[in-house]
């Protein structure tokens, strides 16, 4: 299973990952639209939150819009999604996000672009 592993101890809070993510998927530099969220917990202390592909959301979806792909990544069929956000509300790690820009929620699909952009190697795509 492929997923984005986070190393918060390395994070410097530069926000490059969020910028990369939101620009990639929403064509807009807006941290609220990023599928990875960086939160400052204290001085030089950051929390990194992105989907770990646990799959709890799959069983929550009332329309069957969530399923694992060949790499084990939980992907959403946006045409099927009805925007109910049960996947968001019941995500054990609170890594499924929503924004008023569109009805459908969004989450990390382990594309790896943020990991490539991260200047301090705080993010890593792993297959386990």
């Amino acid at each position, binding site marked *: 299973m492929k997923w984005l592993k986070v190393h918060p101890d390395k994070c410097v809070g530069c926000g490059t990952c969020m910028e990369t993510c939101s620009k990639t998927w929403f064509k807009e530099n807006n941290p609220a639209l990023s599928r990875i969220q960086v939160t400052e917990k204290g001085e030089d202390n950051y929390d990194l939150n992105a989907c770990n592909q646990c799959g709890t959301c799959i069983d929550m979806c009332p329309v069957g819009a969530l399923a694992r792909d060949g790499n084990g990544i939980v992907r959403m069929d946006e045409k099927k999604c009805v925007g109910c956000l*049960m996947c968001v509300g019941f995500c054990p790690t609170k890594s499924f996000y929503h924004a008023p820009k569109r009805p459908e929620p969004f989450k990390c699909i382990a594309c790896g672009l943020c990991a490539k952009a991260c200047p301090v190697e705080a993010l890593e795509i792993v297959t386990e």
Partner: protein
Amino acid sequence: MTKEMKLIAEWTYEPSDVVKGYTNQTLYVNVGKQEFAAKAVSEEMKLKFTGGRGFDLKLLWDAVNEKTKWNDPENEIVISGGPLCGITQYPGAGKFYAAFISPLTEQTYDSNAGGHFGPLLKVAGFDAIELQGKAEKDVVVVIDGDACKVQIFESIFDDVNAYTITEELHELFSDGSNDDKRYVSVLSAGKAAEFSYWGCINSSFWDIRRKVARLKQAGRGGGGTILRDKKIAAVVVKSHKLSGDMNKAVDIKVLQDRGNKLHREIHDLDAQQCRMRTVGTPHLNEIMNEYHLLPTHNYKFGAHKDIDKIHSNVYEKLFTQGIPDGCWYGCSLACAKAVDNFTIQTGPCKGKVVTVDGPEYETAVALGSNVGVFDPYWTLEGNFYADHYGLDTISLGTGLAFVCECYERGYITKEHTAGLDLNFGQAANLMELIHRMALGKDEFALAVGKGVRQMKKIFSERYGAPYEEMEKFGMEGQGIEVSEYVPKESIAQWGGFFLTLKGPQHDEAWLIFMDRVNKQLPTFEDKAEALHYFPNFRTWFSLVGLCKLPWNDIEPADNATKYRPQDAAKVPEHVQNYVDIFNAVTGRNIDKEELILMAERVYNFQRVFNLRMGKGTRKDHNIPLRALGPVYADEWEARPEYYDNELKSTGVDPAGLSVEEKIAKLQEARLAQWDKLVDAVYKRRGWDRNGIPTVKKLKELGMDLPEVVAVVEKHARPEDQWED
């Protein structure tokens, strides 16, 4: 297969997109004259009636006259979801409300159901549908939101029972794939609805995981009876326009934020609060038993030694777990539980392996303790057949409980019942009676299906049963059977059941805990205030298309500590959520006070509507003695110390009195309390002593429409007006 269904009539309409929760047009279909029309929704109609049940009643008012009977062609079934119906972000937003002149109560009734019919009707282009007229042969009405056509087909179905016809129609109006079937919803009744006044309207949704049609019910009041009287075998709606912003809300952010917050509450707290996600409403079974509120043997008793056999833990094991059991998208409360792989033991489906939708608490009790059967498998079979035959499980259970008591008291015998011993607990015979109700041939079964009010007359006239005795324990008000809570221990709940618009259902107010257990309503004025606020607050859900369960079957963690108890009972944070999501969809700017006013407008309109139909006065707010207290010695003797104390609290010393004398004294005292309650409630609601809304009240609400005022002025009497 559509080619095999003969098209009788077809009408093409202009699509009307949803804007701010409304399509701004309603659909009229006359199945007799095969006429169709789209009617515009005015801004005034939205302001005065909001939507849902409000639209239903407005359209029904215009369709009938004061002499209209339930089976007259002009009677309608009007169905509307309301402006919030179909939002997916906030749990419980897929309800429709159906209104009609009821065969049971001979006045307006409204009943609601989940399933996908309400949302699909809206995206198909209509805020409501009126079904009027009577077809000559069985028909299927189809609203095709993709093609913008309304069609009437001659039905090809020999079996109109709900599961059969629903599954066939999901197949027929989809491409046959599992995913495509969810864009279809079917309304149906069933065979028993042709003979019984307890006919329910089944509303379907396609369960993509189980790959079956699930049925939710607008159960009460006889809507299914009217559907079959009109020879409508089914109503189909289909549309592929489902999406997360199908209501075109003005502020989707608010919907997302409030919805997600509630999902989180449910995620964090449901397992400790009501366990709706695992057992649904049957979590109440043992709680009601503990407080002597579980209807047992026709409401004689409120508890039973065999409660463990119907404990929620038993149902938890029967229900399939881990499936998103919402009856509309986004309902993470997921109380629409189902039992899979259930093998039917009796009747026409014997041997078939089915999914049983439910039971909910009311069904678990109505077709359980109330008829003296403590066997969940029997309850499941009864639940399945009631839905399949199109019978309301609540009226059915309470009606059967009445039959059992008549049998126990010797008022009816095997001679009358065509050989059936119908004592409490006679499970096999009671099931046989249900099957006979669907066959429509047996005279006794036909009489039972007419409801408790008619049974009292028929048993008296046909079998010589004592009418006055049956009046004491026949659990009906305004012609409809009491739902499944023992009301005799709470004065406020007498009102919650019997001072209602449409009879003793559990739709308006449930005050037993506030009143009896938590002692939060000490005075008659307190009870009256609760019987003003809660019926109106709960009416509001019916105007906008919401389910009430996510209101207080889940509460914020700090609800009980943040507010004083009387306010905590309102769940203030959730009330604010409702205000916020209404504004976010419609762009209006209501507050929690305006919310109550919106409901009061329709509540009072419906009361006047009933007055127009020859009901709706004080004498129509009947209450059977058993709802007020014990009627026979065995009830008193089940809790002698408790009832002796009850008698003492009325100022009567029970010492030296026989049980019969004690019962008579307590009845006398409680009837006096009932009168006080009626006065207090009428006054608080702005009604006169006879239960008629005053013109002053109508003016305050902006509901002084000329035709409404004319009805009030025709019936109101000077002597019934309050002095001040």
